[in-house]
C-alpha cells in the first residue's frame, strides 16, 4: 500500500475577520437591547440558536465531503482537468460541478478549498464557486423560488448562465498576469 497521509491543512487561528464579526455582533446586540429590551435580545437568540442547531449536522457533512474529496481525487487528473492549462473545458467542468453540488455554503467552500488543494487553479475554482452561488439549485429551490417566485428565479438563472465561465476566464486571465509563476511540476509537456 503506497498510501502516504496528506499533510494536515494549516488551520487558521481566530483571525481578524472573526474579531470584526464579533465586534459587529456585540454592537448590534447592544442596539437591539436598547431598542427592544432583554426580551428582544432573547427572542433573536432563541431563534438563531435553533437555526444553528439545524445547520450543525450540515456543516459536519460539508467538512467530511471536502475531506473525502481531497483525499480520493487524484492530483494529476485534477490539475489536468481543472488546472491553469485546462482551458475552456476546465472552466466548464468547474461550472458544472458548482451547479450540481448539493448543500449550501457549508459544502461549497470546503469542497472548493479541497479542489484548490489538489491542483485546480483559481480560474476553475472561481467558476465553481460563482456557479454554485448563481446557478446551483440548492439555494434556488430552498429559498429563492418560495420567496421570489418561480418565474423570476428561472429567468434570473438563465441570465446568470454565462457568468461562471466569464468570471472564471477573467480570474484565470488576471491571475496568470499577476502571479506569473514558473509552470507547476506536472506541466512539462
Amino acid at each position: 500500500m503506497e498510501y502516504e497521509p496528506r499533510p494536515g491543512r494549516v488551520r487558521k487561528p481566530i483571525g481578524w475577520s472573526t474579531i470584526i464579526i464579533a465586534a459587529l455582533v456585540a454592537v448590534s446586540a447592544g442596539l437591539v437591547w436598547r431598542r427592544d429590551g432583554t426580551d428582544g435580545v432573547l427572542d433573536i437568540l432563541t431563534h438563531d440558536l435553533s437555526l444553528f442547531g439545524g445547520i450543525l449536522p450540515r456543516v459536519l457533512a460539508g467538512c467530511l465531503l471536502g475531506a473525502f474529496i481531497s483525499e480520493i481525487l487524484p492530483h494529476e487528473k485534477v490539475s489536468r482537468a481543472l488546472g491553469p492549462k485546462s482551458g475552456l473545458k476546465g472552466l466548464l467542468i468547474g461550472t458544472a460541478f458548482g451547479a450540481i453540488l448539493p448543500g449550501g455554503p457549508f459544502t461549497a467552500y470546503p469542497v472548493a478549498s479541497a479542489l484548490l488543494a489538489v491542483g485546480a487553479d483559481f480560474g476553475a475554482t472561481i467558476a465553481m464557486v460563482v456557479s454554485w452561488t448563481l446557478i446551483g439549485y440548492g439555494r434556488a429551490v430552498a429559498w429563492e423560488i418560495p420567496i421570489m417566485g418561480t418565474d423570476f428565479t428561472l429567468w434570473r438563472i438563465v441570465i446568470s448562465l454565462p457568468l461562471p465561465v466569464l468570471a472564471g476566464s477573467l480570474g484565470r486571465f488576471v491571475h496568470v498576469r499577476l502571479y506569473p509563476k514558473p509552470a507547476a511540476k506536472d506541466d512539462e509537456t
Partner: protein
Amino acid sequence: MSAALLIDILLWGSVFGVGLIAFRRGPPVFKASLREGSMDFINIVPRIALGVIGSGYIAAIIPQEAITGWLGPDSGWLGVATAVVAGAATPGGPVIGFSIGTVALKSGGGVPQVVAYVVAWALFAFQRVILWEIPFMPARFVWFRCAVSVPFPFVAAAIAMVIGKP
C-alpha cells in the same frame, strides 16, 4: 417532501458515496480523511456559531427600507450600481436577501436593478464572505474571487435590460 429534506438526503448521500470510495482505497485513507474532516468541523464550529447566532442581531438593526429605497425604477446604471452595493451590504441569510428583492420588485423597483441586487448579494454578501468563505478558503483566493466578480452584477443587469422582463 420538503426541499430542505431533499437537500439533506442529497448531501449525506454524497458524503456516503465519497466516503465509500475512500473506504475502498483502504482504511488508512478513510481514517485520515475522517480525521481531517472532523478537525475541520471542530475548528469551524466556533466561527459558524458566532456568525449564525450573531447575524440575527445585525439583521435586526439594519432597516430594510434603507436598502429597498435605493432600487427605484428608472434609476438606470446608477440604480444598478447602488443595487450592487446594497447587495454586498445586506446582512443575514437568504431569507433577508430574497425578501428585500421581492419587496423592491413589488414596490416598483426596476427589474435590471433587482437582478443586479440579487446577483450581487449572491456573489458578495459580506456576511457570507466573512462567515463562510474566509474560514474555509485561503483569504488570498477569497479577495481575488470577489475582485474578479465585481463586473458580473452589471453584466447580469445589462442582459436583463436586453432580454426584458421575466
